């Protein structure tokens, strides 16, 4: 049991020791090679999961929409990703004569690299993490913004009007939805007192290693807003305005084909999977869980979040661009700010640790009581914001109906005269 739950750690230690002892490299070189191997493993994991996810997503969305999905290549269409890969490899790649060659050709590489680098800080099991950065949360946000540059490069370099329109929309959307994402990571960092993802997981585990209270119980509203802005950040449906087929052909990757197009797709899927992993780590307790080994727990939780993403994609229609901006700036951002302020005050008034109480006073409560207090605050903010939006929408509809009735009456009068 112990061997299974620590499998990843044992393998990595073994390989590191092997390199150090057999080849007799200097410590520096040995460490560099170990790092390189770990990076290759992580990148391969991400690329392979991309292949698997394209199949799973097509199957799941097909089932939601009452279709069968891919079923020709291999049993149950399982070989579909390989068929797609062969097609991508052998498809002719055209670079438009008017394109800005350097920018055009570099963009897919940039998006793929930034997407893969996110995996460097994800903790898969205790002690199994690419690197335990003490600014992990910040790093994920920073690397996540890299895809904005790549998309702008693609849109600008293609020298195509639709591509440029798509790139503009994308930048406005990705930049905008970063704000609620930041504002809802802050309460998590405050609760934990650390930005390292390992510390955040440890905060959701009890001292003896059993699963404690996941942050989604503390901060349900933050989790919800983080998920929504995560969907928008990866440009997935219902926020896929960047590649709205009915309006701007295919958005920023209109001019791309073959392997370069595949790299854009890889970037999108790997980013979406990274959002699932980050959500599982920040809000669902990461690798903590009973009985099963930790990495299985993390994969299960991330798979659950990814399923929600696929579900959203299968059921929701695409939003309009003004709706997208309104949802962000007029709903998510103000709500997140109010929530942040209330959470800050509640954390100071009801600290859960003696050290925090010594700094600021307040009533010392158990973590469970703190979780309940924060959850009630979160839910209250959500309910009040929803009712405010509902009231505003009702007022707008009443105005429109009054206007309509007025016009109808005028028409009737005209017809009678």
């Amino acid at each position, binding site marked *: 049991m112990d061997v299974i739950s620590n499998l990843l750690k044992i393998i990595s230690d073994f390989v590191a020791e092997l390199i150090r002892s057999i080849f007799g490299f200097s410590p520096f070189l040995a460490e560099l090679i170990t790092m390189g191997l770990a990076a290759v493993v992580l990148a391969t994991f991400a690329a392979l999961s991309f292949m698997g996810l394209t199949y799973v997503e097509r199957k799941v969305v097909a089932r939601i929409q009452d279709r069968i999905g891919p079923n020709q290549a291999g049993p149950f269409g399982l070989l579909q990703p390989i068929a797609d890969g062969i097609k991508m490899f052998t498809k002719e790649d055209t670079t438009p004569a008017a394109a800005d060659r350097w920018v055009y050709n570099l963009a897919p590489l940039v998006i793929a690299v930034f997407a893969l680098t996110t995996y*460097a800080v994800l903790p898969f099991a205790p002690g199994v993490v690419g690197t335990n950065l003490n600014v992990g949360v910040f790093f994920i946000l920073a690397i996540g913004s890299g895809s904005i540059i790549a998309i702008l490069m693609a849109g600008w370099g293609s020298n195509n009007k639709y591509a440029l329109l798509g790139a503009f929309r994308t930048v406005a959307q990705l930049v905008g939805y970063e704000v609620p994402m930041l504002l809802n990571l802050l309460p998590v960092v405050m609760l934990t007192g650390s930005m390292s993802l390992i510390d955040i997981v440890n905060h959701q585990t009890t001292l003896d290693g059993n699963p404690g209270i996941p942050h989604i119980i503390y901060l349900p509203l933050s989790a919800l807003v983080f998920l929504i802005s995560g969907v928008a950040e990866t440009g997935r449906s219902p926020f896929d305005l960047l590649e709205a087929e009915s309006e701007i052909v295919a958005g920023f990757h209109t001019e791309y084909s073959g392997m370069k197009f595949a790299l854009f797709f890889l970037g999108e899927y790997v980013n979406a999977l990274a959002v699932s992993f980050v959500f599982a780590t920040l809000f669902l307790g990461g690798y903590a869980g009973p009985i099963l080994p930790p990495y299985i727990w993390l994969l299960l939780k991330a798979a659950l979040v990814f399923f929600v993403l696929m579900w959203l994609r299968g059921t929701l229609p695409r939003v309009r661009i003004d709706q997208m901006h309104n949802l962000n700036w007029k709903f998510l951002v103000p709500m997140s700010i109010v929530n942040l302020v209330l959470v800050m005050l509640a954390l100071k008034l009801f600290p859960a640790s003696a050290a925090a109480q010594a700094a600021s006073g307040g009533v010392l409560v158990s973590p469970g009581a703190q979780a309940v207090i924060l959850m009630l605050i979160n839910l209250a903010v959500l309910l009040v914001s929803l009712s405010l939006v509902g009231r505003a929408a009702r007022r707008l509809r009443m105005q429109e109906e009054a206007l309509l009735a007025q016009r109808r009456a005028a028409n009737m009068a005209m017809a009678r005269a």
Partner: protein
Amino acid sequence: MRTDFAFVGVMMVTAALLMGVTLIAAALLRPKKPNPAKLETYECGMSTVGDTWVQFRVQYYILALVFVLFDIEALLLFPIAFAFNSLTLFAVANVVLFVLVLLLALIYAWRKGALDWE
């Protein structure tokens, strides 16, 4: 600390190498028969008219400005969140005031119509 970030560098280089190899392998495998019609800019079958790199909507610029405001706010708030457990109630009240001023700024931008997409 130094080695922590070294891995990020190694990861980026590895990812770039792996993806670069894929691109190069695809370049070797695929057919290459360009002709003028293929290399035209795509625009629903018609040849494109005018310059592509033109002025863009001012709305994007305004939203970017509002974004900068909140991004800097977050930059200032993350250290505070990091040291949150050792802050006094008075310090937190100051932070709350700071955040509320920013909320006022958002409401001002909203009232001015900077957030409306026409």
